[in-house]
């Protein structure tokens, strides 16, 4: 995971003819973490998707070094499969060993649910399953969109442990969250300060 980096340079985002934000700068080195803050609709998820390379930035540059793992609100697990089988597909795609997958499942305390079909899982358990996929992926850059949604206190602690282990191992974490997350001294980006108020002329 050494040498991971995430750099945003004057990034702007245009969605549906509206400029959500512009001029966002961020530079994270190994062990660095950032927290995206701001009211609903300010563009936190869009910025995460720009960081993930799923959305093109309207302006500015995005530089990534290291693999990316994204945890958003969508489960992306085959609902009729047992939890471990469904996770194993992604672990194989990531080149993770079965021991790594088991460790990730244990890190999210999902061991007893391994053989339960994904469609039977509760909201919090689904979130933990997505976090287990993230942990197993061994990617350097973690992008977390509301990772604490639906998690109980014990699961939030598990998330905190996982994030801190990742940072200690030289990973990078960018999170968007409304609840307090157990992040140690994150760079906070209040996205409403980057709001672009002047309307954009349609191209």
């Amino acid at each position, binding site marked *: 995971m050494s040498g991971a980096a995430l750099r945003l340079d004057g990034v702007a985002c245009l969605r549906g003819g509206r400029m959500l934000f512009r001029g966002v700068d961020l530079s994270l080195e190994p062990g660095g973490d950032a927290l995206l803050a701001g009211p609903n609709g300010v563009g936190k998820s869009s910025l995460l998707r720009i960081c993930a390379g799923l959305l093109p930035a309207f302006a500015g540059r995005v530089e990534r070094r290291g*693999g990316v793992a*994204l945890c*958003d609100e*969508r489960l*992306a697990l*085959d609902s009729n499969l047992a939890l471990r089988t469904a996770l194993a*597909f992604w672990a194989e*795609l990531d080149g993770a060993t079965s021991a790594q997958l088991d460790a990730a499942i244990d890190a999210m305390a999902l061991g007893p649910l391994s053989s339960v079909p994904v469609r039977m899982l509760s909201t919090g358990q689904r979130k933990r399953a997505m976090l287990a996929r993230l942990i197993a992926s061994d990617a350097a850059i973690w992008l977390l969109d509301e990772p604490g949604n639906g998690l109980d206190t014990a699961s939030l602690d598990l998330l905190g442990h996982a994030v801190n282990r990742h940072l200690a191992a030289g990973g990078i974490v960018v999170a968007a969250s409304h609840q307090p997350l157990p992040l140690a001294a994150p760079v906070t980006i209040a996205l409403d300060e980057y709001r672009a108020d002047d309307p954009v002329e349609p191209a």
Partner: protein
Amino acid sequence: MTLLWLLIGRDLRQAWTSAGLWLPVAFLLLVASLYPFAVGPDAALLARTGGGMIWIAALLASLLPVDRLIAPDAQNGVLDQIAVRGIGEETVVLARLVAHWIGFGPPLMVATPPAAALLKLSAETILRLEIGLLVGTPALAALGLLVATLTAGLRSSGALAGLLALPLAVPLLIFGAGTLGDGSGAALKFLAASSLLLVAITPFAGGAAIRTGRE
């Protein structure tokens, strides 16, 4: 290469667990058993028109799974999760094309002899049908998949997919049914050419459609 097999394996498992593999077979056999009721039990007429009927049924059967091919994975975030891992959309569409063809081409070919028996087709016609389907079903699979990528984000995408795909499938139907009564083999060559073209452009066109649909 292992990546491609992983994706194909998952797509095939999805098709198998959603019982998608039996749908084209059941559809073809149903159409073949209904057709004699509609046109009457005239053996000569059935034998003359049955081959074309099977081609129409194959074409419509290829549209049955279109709304399951891309849309659920796009909504569920599977495509995004794959993209985050740096895997190109073209690879995803290529894997899906292979899996979709395996899930519907060979089952249709297996269902063709019993369907042909219901329509009193000759052994020679059955052979031509099988060769034509072998060459033509990849094109039908590619067309269905292409339309599925284009309509993935839309509501009532199934109906729209049919409207989009059917006009484009007319050449396949003409060449496919043309192989039945054509001794020169020209229709088969045209069918193979259309098939090659569709299979070649689908990964790129479909990948571009998925990327555009993401915004």
